[in-house]
């Protein structure tokens, strides 16, 4: 693909090589962006590869090989953070895909109060994550919280959403879905609206049921939207920090720690090398999971 673009560019160049006329599209337009991005994003990323192999105090660093990584995969609470991160990403992206699709179907059907419903579902996307986190921490309070008081009215004994180590991570993931499903919904709406009506017409003539309509027309043709929602929310889920930090700080114990919260905790504790190793682990985790996922989702998309 790279080679192809290069040859294409060579043949398309406007001016003959001899004429040194200045291009109206000067390459230095890249410079301001490139400097900021290069210095503040790329350089630290490369530096992290080295510093993750050191014991580091910011002033001096001692090369210790892979010790940080060994520690990362041996300490049970660090391993749990790694597992939690994947669980969190799978739960949030899975639920966002399903609920986003359902809501988009509902909001593109001829239902009353569509505008109101779209706004209500989308608004949480724009609200401060920390604000949402604190609000739900209060709503999820085991005895006084509104959620459990509501459940009590129905005769259900609500669990300790954030205090039960088995539930804490899932509770935070559910709040993440609450906040993020609006984005998935609008992406799906954009995808559904783009499906040509002819397909449904043809399906109707063939006598397709509503379920067949969905399964054989809507679902395959909204695949680009599905790919986008999955990839976006999966990356977001793997990198998540603010919501976890606002709601549980990784607790109770280490039950809801993710790699991102581990990075912050190790940074606070002054273990800079270990924290940076966490960064590299997260980077590798994202690359290993997201790149094949993207390729898989886009390969199917290519058939259209």
């Amino acid at each position, binding site marked *: 693909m790279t080679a192809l*673009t*290069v040859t294409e*560019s060579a043949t*398309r160049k406007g001016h003959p090589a001899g004429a040194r006329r200045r*291009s109206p*599209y000067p*390459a230095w*337009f*890249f410079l301001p*962006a490139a400097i*900021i*991005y290069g*210095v*503040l994003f790329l*350089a630290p*990323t490369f530096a*992290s590869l080295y510093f993750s192999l050191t014991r580091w105090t*910011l002033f001096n660093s001692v090369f210790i090989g892979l010790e940080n990584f060994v520690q990362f995969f041996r300490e049970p609470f660090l391993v749990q953070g790694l597992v939690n991160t994947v669980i969190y990403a799978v739960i949030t992206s899975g639920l966002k895909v399903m609920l986003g699709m359902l809501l988009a179907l*509902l909001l593109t059907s*001829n*239902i*009353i*109060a569509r505008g109101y*419903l779209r706004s*209500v*579902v989308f*608004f*949480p*996307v*724009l*609200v*401060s*994550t*920390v*604000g*949402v986190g604190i*609000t739900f921490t209060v*709503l999820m*309070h085991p005895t*006084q919280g509104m959620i459990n*008081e509501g459940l009590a009215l129905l005769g259900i004994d609500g669990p300790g959403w954030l205090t039960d180590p088995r539930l804490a991570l899932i509770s935070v993931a559910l709040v993440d879905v*609450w906040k993020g499903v609006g*984005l998935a919904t*609008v*992406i799906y*709406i*954009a*995808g559904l609206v783009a499906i040509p009506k002819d397909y449904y017409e043809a399906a109707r003539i063939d006598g397709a049921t509503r379920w067949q309509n969905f399964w054989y027309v809507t679902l395959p043709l909204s695949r680009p939207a599905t790919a*986008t929602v999955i990839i*976006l929310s999966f*990356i977001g889920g793997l990198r998540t920090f603010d919501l976890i930090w*606002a709601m549980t700080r990784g607790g109770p114990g280490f039950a809801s720690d993710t790699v*991102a919260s581990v*990075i*912050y905790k190790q*940074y606070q504790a002054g273990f800079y090398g270990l924290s*940076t190793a966490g*960064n590299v682990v997260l980077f590798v985790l*994202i690359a290993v999971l*997201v790149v094949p996922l993207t390729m898989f989702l886009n390969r199917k998309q290519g058939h259209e």
Partner: protein
Amino acid sequence: MSKAGPIVGGIAAIVISALVFLVPFAFIILTAFKDRAQAAALDFTWPASFNLWTNLVEVVTTRNWMLVTAFINSTILTVSSVTLLVVFAAMVGFILARRKSRWNPLVEFLILAGLMIPPAVVPTIWLMQGLGLFGKLHGLVLIEVAYNLPFSIILYRAFIATIPRELDEAAIIDGARPLDVFFRVILPLLWPVTVTNIVVQSVGIFNDFTNPLYYLPGNQNATVQLTLYNFQSQFNTSYNLLFTNILLITIPPLIVFLFFNRQIVAGMTAGAVKG
């Protein structure tokens, strides 16, 4: 199909959505109106007395007017980083869409990398300390620019590709230099996508919590999201004040939402689908 279906379904949807999405916001507002004792019950009840004004005054004056400082900091941060983002991203998008060079594949790769790779926090801090940018507001501005450039570039590139080249060529024939072509011909034409960019990035940067937490420590430097975090422990028993603060920092996104709903949705879906 009968007409009853959509109406019944619609009413059900309204009730459920109100329960799921509006009740939490109503809870924030109600709690912000309560006095301390009633707020401590964490109930979804009507305020016994209306104390919004007292709560507001108390939240705003706490810790030597920290919230005011924070709002000023957040405003400076948002306005300056979005300004830089718009200009720099448009420049990159312009060249990327117009000039086929051997740098393009590399730039494309870096854009994707920027969307995916989590920033390496401690090395960034180390580097910023070396450059004298750590703990400075302008340092955080540059960080926000660096982290959000890829998304803005994607938005711009897609849009610039739809602007006919003949426009630049006409300007060049009229003797315009590259900078004139860009700033006087192209940039004004990009207004719709610039609005989208401004709106989407402003909301994101205003709501950013993680980067100020790492790169801008210290009470004097707090941004609005950090006040919430700082007050969380201080207002442990004063939920009325905590929720007054949440209410306050929810207002700017709400205003943006009311006026620019369409642009936000357009930007987020366009950028997302292309990305």
